[in-house]
């Protein structure tokens, strides 16, 4: 049972090659005056060697024991995917749209769409949590949260 070692090993091998190439481009310098790419070049090589050994062992195991189990079985991938998409959109749009609007939108998305609570619960929870967060972070702690489209509204 290699538990995905083959796949992950190959992934890290590719990463290590990328690092080696990029570090070399940064310049290794000389031993008595190491350049910006010095440490990373050798670290990349070390990572590559480790990945190769992982891949090698996984390959041997696979030939001996057959295909490994699925990593993602029995997993509610859709839910995770949707939540993460929502949160990523939040991060990308936060500064443009503003904290208050985006936070309410995100919470409505999570409570209403993903958790499927009723609209009353969703509305109440979203507004209350956003207000509390705003009070805590903006009013009390003076964190500079982005205003976004509510820029005109000075409060």
């Amino acid at each position, binding site marked *: 049972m290699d*538990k*995905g*070692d083959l*796949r*992950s090993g190959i992934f*890290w091998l590719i990463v290590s090659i990328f*690092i080696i190439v*990029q570090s070399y481009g*940064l*310049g290794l310098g000389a*031993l*008595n*005056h*190491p350049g*910006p*790419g*010095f*440490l*990373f070049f050798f*670290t*990349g090589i*070390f*990572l590559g060697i*480790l*990945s190769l*050994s*992982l891949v090698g062992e996984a390959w041997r195991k696979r030939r001996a024991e057959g295909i490994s189990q699925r*990593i993602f079985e*029995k*997993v*509610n991938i859709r*839910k*995770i995917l949707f939540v*993460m998409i929502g*949160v*990523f959109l*939040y*991060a*990308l749009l*936060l*500064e443009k749209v503003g*904290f208050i609007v985006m*936070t309410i939108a*995100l*919470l409505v998305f*999570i*409570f209403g769409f993903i*958790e499927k*609570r009723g609209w009353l619960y969703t509305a109440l*929870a979203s507004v209350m*949590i956003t207000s509390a*967060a705003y009070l805590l*972070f903006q009013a*009390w*702690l*003076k*964190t*500079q*949260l*982005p205003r976004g489209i509510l820029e005109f509204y000075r409060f």
Partner: protein
Amino acid sequence: MIDSVVYGFQVALQPMNLIYCFIGVLIGTLVGVLPGLGPSATIAILLPSTFRLPPVSGIIMLAGIWYGVMYGGSTTSILVNIPGEPSSVVTCLDGYQMAKKGRAGPALGISAFGSFIAGTFSIIGLTLMGPALAGLALRFGPPERFSLMVVGITVLTYLTSGSMRKSLMMACFGLILGGVGIDAISGIYRFTYNLQALLDGLGLVPAVMGLFGISEVMLNLETEMRRDFVTSRIEHLLPTLKDWADSIGAIIRGTVLGFFLGIIPGGGAIVASFASYAIEKKVSKHPGKFGTGVIEAVAGPEAANNAAAGGAFIPLLTLGIPPNVVMAIFLGALMIHGLQPGPLLMQNAPDVFWGTIVSMYIGNGMLLVLNLPLIGLWVKVLRVPYHLLYPLIFLFCLIGSYSVRNTAGDVVIMLIFGVLGYLMKKFQYEAAPMILAMVLGPMLEEALRQSLLMSFGSFTIFVTRPISLGFLVTAAILLITPMITQRRKISHLEE
């Protein structure tokens, strides 16, 4: 000396400062309990609110938060297996296992008491040895610093329960990640690809929040079942005599280890907790049981990380050199209040210096009082239904990562780390080595390059200097031992 301490008490016991100490400690514990927001983010977020306060009160409050987070972090580690912050990662290993066996009470208890003892001793140490120790630590040249950090990373990969090879891979990757951004020596941008968010490097706070917080939430979203939570009533908070007997050695060792590791730049609470775990495992009569719920595996690291928190103040307050990220934020805080940390701080602002030190002692006492009886409260906080809790955790992380540098780029970075952390968990890679290497990376690289400059390119400098040699030998032993013991196991099986 005694006069100074008495003076410190006079400052710290003023009602206003007591209140701010309490607020700091309370907020710190709360933040420590909630996974997602770490001490750096919290201190960064709360920094502006201290502007209006007199310097002493502001610094006292921030120090209280720092300590509080340490205490609070152990609570989530033990009860929910989510480290409240990086230095409680180790506590999860055995603490959570103890909780699953119904021994959450003693785990929490010993961690609180151990932390108190360690914190108290480290503050006494700070008072007595401050100036002298800082001098010694500063005599560590680049080769010693380099070797120490190599040991720190090796220790970490040694103790991870998974594959050491994979942990080493993660450490390598973390080292690279630490290099993203501008190169201090040459001024070149590395691995930034002209992305605004990467120019200043990858923030530690977003990375930690993502790798440990977000990924954990994602993991919990996988199944509709209630997540792994110790739901049985938490009883018997006071550890038994046997628990004390088992743990006292660990606490003492952890305190001493943590204190010294906290002083050394690049050391700190995280390394201290991991190092303590490794040492306890080595010293133990039953190392095989580590990871199943052994109390000294909780007592030692908890003591170590609190002692390190105290020790970390030494280079900051006496020399103006922050040994880790949180202390770097403290440095900023002191400067914003018009104070210059360093040898002159003692003379120019004795109320800040001694008042803060003494307030830490008081803070420790407050924490002990807060944590044990209020565990019921913290548990209730954690018992909020998960569908309500995870959006809150997300929100805290989102705002927290945003507020460190006021840029949405950090939020995106945090989320990417979250996905990475999730995949790593599924494919069984450890995140802690990556984070430690990321933190130590820049310092490690600087030490390496300085060493090679000093030695004109010769690597022998690392082995001709005795302290450095000692560290490297330790690292080598840690790397080679597992391979030998594994071969023996395999050959035994074959026989």
